[in-house]
């Protein structure tokens, strides 16, 4: 077991650095979608919730597991949909305003 724990700790350590490296480069205009996007990603607890409910032996475990799957689904689905809705607005737009200025200038 000690070796497994060490292996998990290694993964943890490396991921911390990856997380910091990636985020340090995100421009501030994307901070809100970033928060929302990472919010969706921690919804991966859904996988844990499924395993818990799938292994439930008692009524108590079933109730807790059911609630966990429900809440985790809210997290995942809500997180991705909200983020997508925010990012939809960042798609490239025709630069009509810029063109108008140029026309006036000419």
């Amino acid at each position, binding site marked *: 077991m000690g070796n497994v724990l060490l292996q998990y700790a290694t993964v943890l350590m490396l991921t911390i650095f990856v997380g910091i490296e990636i985020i340090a480069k995100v421009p501030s205009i994307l901070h809100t979608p970033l928060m929302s996007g990472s919010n969706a990603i921690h919804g991966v607890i859904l996988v844990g919730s499924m*395993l818990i409910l799938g292994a439930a032996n008692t009524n108590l475990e079933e109730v807790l597991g059911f609630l966990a799957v429900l809440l985790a689904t809210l997290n995942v689905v809500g997180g991705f949909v909200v983020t997508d809705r925010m990012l939809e607005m960042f798609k490239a737009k025709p630069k009509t305003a810029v063109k*108008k*200025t140029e026309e006036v200038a000419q």
Partner: protein
Amino acid sequence: MSRETLIDLLYLFSATTFILALKGLGSPKRARMGNGIAAVGMLVAVVATFFKFVDGHALHHVWLILLAMFIGVIIAVPTARFVKMTAMPQLVAIFNGVGGGAASLVSITEFVHIKATHPATYVTLEVLLGVLIGTVSFAGSAIAFAKLQELMTGRPVTYPGQQILNGVFGVVALALIITILVTNSTALLWILLALAFILGIAFVLPIGGADVPVLISLLNAFTGLAVAASGFTLGSNLLIVAGTLVGASGILLTRMMSKAMGRSLSNVLFSAFGSNITATGDGVREDGRTVRSGSPEDAGVLMNFATRVVIIPGYGLAVAQAQHVLRELAEELEAKGIEVFFAIHPVAGRMPGHMNVLLAEANVPYEQLLELDEANSELQTADVALVVGANDTVNPAAKDDKNSPIYGMPIISADLAENVLFLKRSMRPGFAGIENELLYNPKTMLIFGDAKDTLTKILATVKNS
């Protein structure tokens, strides 16, 4: 290849998509695709999990799992789809909260499940940390939601001995964890759960509405850490990677946000910022100076003669739903050959980047959006600075008044422009509850009224002249 190896490989694929997604968020063009990639990765992980064996058998209760998921989707999709963009921050808060709740429930259930097998101490410790952090995130997010949704006051809630009491809660929680490690008592676990719940509420109560976005970012990181703790317990690399990614990035983001406000994270969390309201709101200074107000028509005429206008929007713009009228005004001015920029303070709105999202929704091209430093250099040569629904982010007290609670916060220096037009609903102070010197500046003209009405009138004046 064995079934378990295949599932683990699929999990590895999912973990990779999560990293790619966060990387994609680094540019506006790739961000949406990044989010889509993560969603695919998540779907793969969930489907693969249905085929996983636990305790030596296939998953039980598959129909219960599907039912819970179905209910979740039915609630989440319409909520996420149809809530107004201005309500985004509280929506993120609540989706974060339920994630924390799920992580906590997973840890509790695992404790109940493995208790009979007398697990190693470190396994129990992971479980207890998952319960504690997950529940704090859940309860804290619920209060953050209530504050932003204005179900309760947005001002800091303080009471005598608050810090000491919170400290005591923390110490008791720690003592409980140690006791449970020794005794493996389920009864004590429930007490820890209740205490974590109270701790989450007590932690968030003294944080003022203006600081809630920083708080949500921190709670987001907490949920990530709770998920990582569950990953240790369940032996899942996927949960460890995803949870840690969110935890590490969330803490960095939280620090970046505090820095944007010129304050340290501990100052944001523990100083009950905004509880001292110094502004009188009667429009007269002690030295007798008063504000100068004008009509929307005056503003329209002034802008017509400008060659460069910098618009400084704040949350009030979104509250008045005036971002579309503002964009029309900007287009009209540009059509007349007037240069228009939008100066975006990093904490304008209720979340970092919130204002960018709102303006993007109103079709303002993001080439026109300037960040703080660029904005301040453009303002030096601007004829008009138009402040719409912003207040604390243009308050010169942050530069000049060492006693001001916002001293040190970087601001947009609207007073560098030749003229300042300040659209305001009333003389009420901003979110931080402090007087704004800019209102009494001789350059400043106040235009009272609802931002949308005022902008519509200004637009009409600009069009007709």
